[in-house]
């Protein structure tokens, strides 16, 4: 039992570490996705604006600077 308990404990620790790692990874991916989404949105509003005929240099420069 003692052995089993220490095994469980070590296992728990490992899972916790692993979860931590996964969480980090998810966090990074999420950030990246947000950024990509933001870029898409920028792109979209820019194309819309240019379709409307309004000139918006500021926005396009900031959008291209995002990458």
């Amino acid at each position, binding site marked *: *039992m*003692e052995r*089993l*308990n220490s095994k*469980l*404990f*070590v*296992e*728990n*620790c*490992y*899972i*916790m*570490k*692993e*979860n*931590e790692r*996964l*969480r*980090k*990874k*998810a*966090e990074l*991916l*999420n950030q*990246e*996705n947000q950024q*990509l*989404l933001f*870029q*898409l*949105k920028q*792109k*979209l509003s*820019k*194309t819309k604006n*240019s379709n409307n005929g309004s000139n918006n240099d500021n926005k*396009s420069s900031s*959008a*291209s600077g*995002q*990458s």
Partner: protein
Amino acid sequence: MAMSCKDGKLGCLDNGKYVRYTPEQVEALERLYHDCPKPSSIRRQQLIRECPILSNIEPKQIKVWFQNRRCREKQRKEASRLQAVNRKLTAMNKLLMEENDRLQKQVSQLVHENSYFRQHTPNPSLPAKDTSCESVVTSGQHQLASQNPQRDASPAGLLSIAEETLAEFLSKATGTAVEWVQMPGMKPGPDSIGIIAISHGCTGVAARACGLVGLEPTRVAEIVKDRPSWFRECRAVEVMNVLPTANGGTVELLYMQLYAPTTLAPPRDFWLLRYTSVLEDGSLVVCERSLKSTQNGPSMPLVQNFVRAEMLSSGYLIRPCDGGGSIIHIVDHMDLEACSVPEVLRPLYESPKVLAQKTTMAALRQLKQIAQEVTQTNSSVNGWGRRPAALRALSQRLSRGFNEAVNGFTDEGWSVIGDSMDDVTITVNSSPDKLMGLNLTFANGFAPVSNVVLCAKASMLLQNVPPAILLRFLREHRSEWADNNIDAYLAAAVKVGPCSARVGGFGGQVILPLAHTIEHEEFMEVIKLEGLGHSPEDAIVPRDIFLLQLCSGMDENAVGTCAELIFAPIDASFADDAPLLPSGFRIIPLDSAKEVSSPNRTLDLASALEIGSAGTKASTDQSGNSTCARSVMTIAFEFGIESHMQEHVASMARQYVRGIISSVQRVALALSPSHISSQVGLRTPLGTPEAQTLARWICQSYRGYMGVELLKSNSDGNESILKNLWHHTDAIICCSMKALPVFTFANQAGLDMLETTLVALQDISLEKIFDDNGRKTLCSEFPQIMQQGFACLQGGICLSSMGRPVSYERAVAWKVLNEEENAHCICFVFINWSFV
């Protein structure tokens, strides 16, 4: 004990034969065992004489029977303990596996989304219009902030906020919406209250806990919603509006006030939406969030003197657990408006550790406490004792009364008299009935004697004094700061008549323990001051005075807790509703926020020096040398008086509190480690001469065995040896020379490698850090270390205290000898170590 313990019916004779007892004999023996598990030989002979049924058994056999019986008992206890630990670990394991599963799904989902986005993100340099872009943004799969539905005070508007709060809370409780790191100093393990995590670099401060409690989900929800019952800082929660929702849930609008912990900061209030509902999988959720004016929701006007703080989506996820009980996830996330307090206090409002201790873990503790009380209703004194609810209510009233005194709200009838810029603030309350009647109704309390309550309070900054140690001193050496005459005076207020403060002799002080919480982080006691008071009938006859006292934060290992000593004179009847007028001390450590950002950081010399230079000009600066740990101490003393005595008592109280401040300063100076070695500026126990001596012995012994220096730059001073050793890049760790060696000292690298602190280090045994292989090597080398004095160990793997594998190139172990050439401990140096 060498005999078989398996069967208690067998006794063993010298010649190895087994003797079988009759059931009657066993029964008689069992009865005797129950009365006395370890009878002396005289007692055993007596037993044989008294009990005819045993008369034919040899005394030796009886002795063996008792030995075996005790052995069995011990084994049974051990087995049940192990089983309990096993249950806990298995549950934790299940929980973690679930979390792991969820996270894996989340990651794969994100990876999937990511590749999708990548495919559809046009090269920024190409302004080509891609129609698929539109579908991503407008499909509603990813709602953008600008697409929030209309928000207003209508039920629909509130429900939309409620649903959003729920989603945000869940993503924090089980997901990655906040970057969680393990709470430093809280090792997950069989004996911890749960898995505690704190936020790392997010808006505001957040803390999360996950644990098991033996209570049904609905009961858990009931308890956590009753915030004032477990959150000591919570002054009031008022439900302003309740709306049932279509899905069977409830949306409530709450106004909540929190006490300020010290006189130096204003209190906080919150305007909240709380949503209670049941999820599809049967889990119960209680989540809350601040309502802000920008959201067009219902608003709550600002209240004078209160700072409006923000609660970000927080709450409780309560899942029913197989075999009864609940698995509970708690998230607390707040922005406490740290900028509204003096700079020196900001760490208190910016530290997720403090939030975790005060709120998140407090909730979990309350749940565990109540769960334990439920299971132990019939058993004898344990935890809060036989009347847990009544004692808990008393402790709550003490704490609350102290908080009221410190805060002195005008709506409670307090007003400041005299100069508010004075070091000691005096406030009076001429409606003590209201003050005392907060939680109780009593027939004969203060009213007949005292119609005014006067409070003298002050806050001071302390440097280099561990709060727990200072508070322990204040508790154990009451006569160092307390004036018996004042105690007698205070006590008179709760009696029937005013009493003369002419007290002659010194009475003795007796502390009677009353009750403690499961984890002993808080306990209550009665102090008996013998023969101090005078009975109103006969002023000659001395009378004992009783003080009810609440102590918490006495454990210096706890992270982020404040230490409190709150006491109130109490009538000898100890009635549950006895009037209480609490006074006391609260010491809050301040520097925790500095370390919180990096959980791996341990006590170190460099940070100790940094903090000193970054500090603000403290008003009660005691010395010019570098500061390490700072804390703020708040003192409040309450006196029940008659209104015509106000002037007189005010000046007396002011003098008294000043006197206490100077006593505390005197004690603090004596306790401060910098007093001993102010030049080094190291924290305890590093600054002590003992540490310097040990460092010298370590280096001398190493040189003696190995013929080379351990430290490269060898300078003569003890202090610099310690400093060099402390900063050495290899892990240097000492352990005791006992049968089961435990660690006694480690340098910075050693602490990093073991992922521990100097204090926690002493709970780790040597064999714990080695795997099977390493243990074998160590066992074979150990005789060599003892005989030759040293051994070189090949590279290998060892484990940190968190179970993380560490590889090292090689290691050297040697005996550390003291001045008399006696072995003091064994020292290890792990060369070129790194986490695998």
